[in-house]
């Protein structure tokens, strides 16, 4: 039985094409379509309902120690009002989920996880948090909207005090009044554009959405669905759990080494990652050089030999190119390597390119 976010009726009344995703019913697009929604985010602004995401609170005198035990990054240096990306690993070094930790205080951490992994992550955290840490799944009471695009600040400033908006990437402000609604606002997102993620209580979601849509009208804000969310993150080379990583892929193989602090005393998976050494396969970005579109789960060849498989692929709406990410043998992963991708039986010529495919101004 699928769940609905507080904004379900709004999506339906705005003509959203509803699909099941991670146990929720959400719009994949509105009548505007994925291409228009994608371009709106790249050139003006877009608004996403991401209330399906999970939120877990870790609190208590050992909360920091628990966060550092559970997650690959080092949170000892994280300041209140800042956030940091990390990976929840299993003891084999495989990825359970990727997530973001917000520091509310020395004994209070707010962790945002993928909707599809919420129950799995919560169970893992409960089982592995240190004594003295309380772990609470608060997802159902929280709604989250993502306002993304170059006009985001203009739009939010219409209905919130600009002086209270977070000034730095990966920083946040709590108890910001947005059109009279109490919100947490972080400068973050999953699109590769400047923007905000805005959290409020579930009862306020509809009012907040309406206020943002209204404030954004003069700036050309469009409501956007899951389809554009995927093309935007892929164009920005951002990984998606279940594609670029899963429990058989390590964060190092997924090219997430920047958030893996092997020098930390310990964390779940550290020993396995150290024992594995330098990854023998690695995530790369690929662009088709021939006519065609690369999709996920397609084999990649170099010099006639299979070197790996794609993990995500699409036609990038803003770049207007067929792009993909793949995990391939490290020996053949150099930027510039000419490869072929088996696209439904046809060998499509492609090339390994630097990531991100797209970076905003």
């Amino acid at each position: 039985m699928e769940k609905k976010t507080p904004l379900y009726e709004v999506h339906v009344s705005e003509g959203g094409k509803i699909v099941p995703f991670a146990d929720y019913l959400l719009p994949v697009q509105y009548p505007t379509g994925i291409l228009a929604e994608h371009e709106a985010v790249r050139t003006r602004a877009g608004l996403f309902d991401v209330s399906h995401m999970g939120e877990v609170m870790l609190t208590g005198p050992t909360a920091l120690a628990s966060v550092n035990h559970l997650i690959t990054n080092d949170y000892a240096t994280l300041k209140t009002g800042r956030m940091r990306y990390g990976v929840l690993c299993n003891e084999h070094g495989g990825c359970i989920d990727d997530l973001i930790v917000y520091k509310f205080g020395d004994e209070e951490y707010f962790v945002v996880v993928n909707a599809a992994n919420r129950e799995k992550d919560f169970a893992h955290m409960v089982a592995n948090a240190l004594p003295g840490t309380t772990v609470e799944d608060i997802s159902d009471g929280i709604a989250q909207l993502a306002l993304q695009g170059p006009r985001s600040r203009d739009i939010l400033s219409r209905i919130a005090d600009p002086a209270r908006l977070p000034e730095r990437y990966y920083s946040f402000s709590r108890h910001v009044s947005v059109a009279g609604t109490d919100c947490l606002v972080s400068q973050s997102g999953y699109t590769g554009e400047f923007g905000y993620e805005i959290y409020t209580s579930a009862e306020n979601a509809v009012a907040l959405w309406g206020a943002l849509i209204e404030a954004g009208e003069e700036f050309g804000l469009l409501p956007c669905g899951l389809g554009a969310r995927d093309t935007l993150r892929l164009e920005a080379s951002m990984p998606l759990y279940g594609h670029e990583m899963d429990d058989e892929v390590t964060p190092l193989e997924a090219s997430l080494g920047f958030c893996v602090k092997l020098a930390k005393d310990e964390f779940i998976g550290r020993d396995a990652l150290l024992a594995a050494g330098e990854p023998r396969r690695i995530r790369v970005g690929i662009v088709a050089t021939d006519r065609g579109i690369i999709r996920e789960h397609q084999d990649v060849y170099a010099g006639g030999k299979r070197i790996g498989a794609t993990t995500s692929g699409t036609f990038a709406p803003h770049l207007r190119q067929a792009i993909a990410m793949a995990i391939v043998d490290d020996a053949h992963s150099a930027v510039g390597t000419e490869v072929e991708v088996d696209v439904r039986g046809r060998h499509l010529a492609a090339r390994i390119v630097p990531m991100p495919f797209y970076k905003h101004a």
Partner: protein
Amino acid sequence: MANVPEGLKYTKSHEWISEQGGTYTVGLTDFAQDALGDLVFINLPQEGDCVTAGETLCDVESVKAVSDVFSPVTGTISEVNEALADSPEMINETPYGAWIARVEGVSDIEELLDAAAYVAFCGKE
């Protein structure tokens, strides 16, 4: 409510077809283009290719997925709408103007629906 012109025939796989002087022209219906979403690529067939009624004529790609276009007739492709190669979105914009291929030497035609029957069929989809 999808547009369904009177003068054409339709298939249950959402292609339209018209005939003039033994040449059959095939495209995708408004219902199809709306269901597929923005089209970003088309793998056009080639002149001279043989097609079989009920089998794949070519495929189109939207942002999210690949979909087959089926041929309503058995015959040989005599002409292909090359303009679609660079602008597949024409199918979204003008589904009944943006024909995909023309077929001649037709020896078999699958059962076709007229406009009213197609509208009724779509109503149940």
